């Protein structure tokens, strides 16, 4: 098991290096430069600033400096925000994004499993039809539409209760998080619902379910002890990629709900070609996802004994 984790960590490091390099190259291929947005400036001022940020050096030299600093865990200072370290930006704003993401993921997973199991139990009856119809909508409508619908919903809800129970935007309390997390998790929830449904249906006709029925096991116990655990396996496999979907989806939701998460800074940085912030956040997100996928893989081993043994043998 330890060997397995070490192997995965090593391949993770290579992945992150690749992400960093690709982002670096891609960024420098974008026309324009970080100073293009600033007001007209004298050539010598421009040269001064370029020297200060290392932009006067050849690109491969910049790459070397960047990589060296990254190894030390230093992502440099922002180009557009005065005297702000990228590390500080991540430290201050990532926890917000992470909290939102975790909530969204919990909602998506729990919802996906429950709805998926329900549709399988009520297969071809009206609850199945209704849920699957909603699932198609949730998968196909982009999250910014849901984000705005969510805000409208909050307004309507507050009107109905006659008090400002749910804030429309901003950050701070649990009530701030609820609707954004729901919106953020919606697409993933719909996807997991479909997956869970087909997985449940497959398991329902499995031989070992017939064996359990022949043993005289009650339907409820069959559902929880025999079906659910086997049906959840494929759902767990896609949790890793789902985390990616949720974190990237978070950018939009954070913008609409004015949540001070990392996503907002990321989008701003791309618009302003803030090299260091783009690099820092991209590499950070990359590393985060690599770790998350690894965690999911280890988790999978706890649920499926077959994987566990294969891993310890590896």
């Amino acid at each position, binding site marked *: 098991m330890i060997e397995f984790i070490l192997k995965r960590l090593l391949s993770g490091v290579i992945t992150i290096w690749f992400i960093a390099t690709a982002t670096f190259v891609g960024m420098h291929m974008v026309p324009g430069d970080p100073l293009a947005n600033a007001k007209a400036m004298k050539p010598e001022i421009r040269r001064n600033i370029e020297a200060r940020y290392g932009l006067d050096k050849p690109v491969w030299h910049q790459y070397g400096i960047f990589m060296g600093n990254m190894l030390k865990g230093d992502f440099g200072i922002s180009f557009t925000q005065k005297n702000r370290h990228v590390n500080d930006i991540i430290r201050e704003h990532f926890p917000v994004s992470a909290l939102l993401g975790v909530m969204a993921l919990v909602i998506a997973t729990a919802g996906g499993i429950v709805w998926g199991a329900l549709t399988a139990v009520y297969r071809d009856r009206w609850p199945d039809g209704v849920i699957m119809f909603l699932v198609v909508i949730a998968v196909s409508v982009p999250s910014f539409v849901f984000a705005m619908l969510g805000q409208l919903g909050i307004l309507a809800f507050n009107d109905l209760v006659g008090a400002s129970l749910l804030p429309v935007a901003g950050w701070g309390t649990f009530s701030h998080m609820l609707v954004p997390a729901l919106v953020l998790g919606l697409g993933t929830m719909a996807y997991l619902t479909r997956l869970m449904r087909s997985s449940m249906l497959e398991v329902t006709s499995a*031989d070992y379910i017939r064996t359990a029925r022949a*043993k*005289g096991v009650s339907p409820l116990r069959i559902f929880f002890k025999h079906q659910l655990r086997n049906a959840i396996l494929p759902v767990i496999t896609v949790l890793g990629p789902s985390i990616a979907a949720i974190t990237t989806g978070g950018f939009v939701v954070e913008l609409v709900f004015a949540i001070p998460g990392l996503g907002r800074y990321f989008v701003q940085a791309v618009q302003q070609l803030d090299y260091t912030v783009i690099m820092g956040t991209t590499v950070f997100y990359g590393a985060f996802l690599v770790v998350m996928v690894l965690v999911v893989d280890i988790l999978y081993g706890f649920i499926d004994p077959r994987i566990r043994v294969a891993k310890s043998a590896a």
Partner: protein
Amino acid sequence: MSDNNIIEQHKAPALDVRDLQVEFDAQGGVVKAVRGVSFSVNPGETLGIVGESGCGKSVTMMSVMGLIPMPPGRIVGGSAKLNGRELLGLPLRELNNIRGAEIGMVFQDPMSALNPTMRIGEQIAETLMIHRGIGKTEALKRAVELLERTKIPEAAKRARQYPFEFSGGMLQRAVIAMSLACNPSVLIADEPTTALDVTIQNQVLELMREIQREEGMAIVLITHDLGVVARMADHVTVMYAGQVVESGTVDDIFYRSAHPYTLGLKEAMPSAEMHVEQKLTAIAGSPPDLFAPPAGCGYCNRCNHALNICDKLGPELIAVGEGHHSRCWLQHAQAKREVAELYQGSKRAC
């Protein structure tokens, strides 16, 4: 209860199925999968049910166990009595008290018959916990004993393993251990050895026989392997197109076959004396479409001995000997008489 009664009960069949009819709704019509099947099996005896794939032998036993999906399945008529108690139409709660406790079931493919995410011991213990109401620790201990009983080495260690860590033969032993956990009076084995290779097959059959000798339970053995039937069964029921075409003792079926289909099955069996170049004999044609069962005998299109009547009217089961029945017009008194007359006529013409 008087002594007389106990003796009476002992003589009564453990499982008695009468005129069972099962249908399935399918796209394009209704499949009449089982068309009036009757058989019974006494305690301590083994009944072999043989027939080719799709003849309804598995559906029959699944219906008795209440395991066919309903809908699309439907039990149209008949009865199935376990020790005198009607099983068909029992509410699920009561049926669940019987399944696993009084009837055990062993399935064809042991590789997929066990839950892949549950330890073997737990799966056996589950039966005990449900029916005997004992705690988990106690049930697990009993599970290990059951595994030992089915001759699984290092049973205590094996009980903590998962199905994928077992070989096919070991798994089938575990399934047998599971089905025997509550000492059922009937064990239904649905092609228990089809998925196993011959040496393992032998061991599993031997094990079933041995346990039957000790426990005295009745076994219903569903198979399409006549070799297995010859070895294991006391009585045999041959099924074809959802009906019983011949039934009798194992000697009746093998030495005094009274139905062309049984003869066909016997001829199709490869024998040890065959030459390498010799082709295997097969019964030409295929079984009738059960969407629209034929008015006459289902076998007559493939039968070498078909009479004019066979196409128009299906025969009933005709007694051929003591406890030996055949669903064939050739066994009818009139047919026998006419054949005899024909025979004599041809002799006169000579």
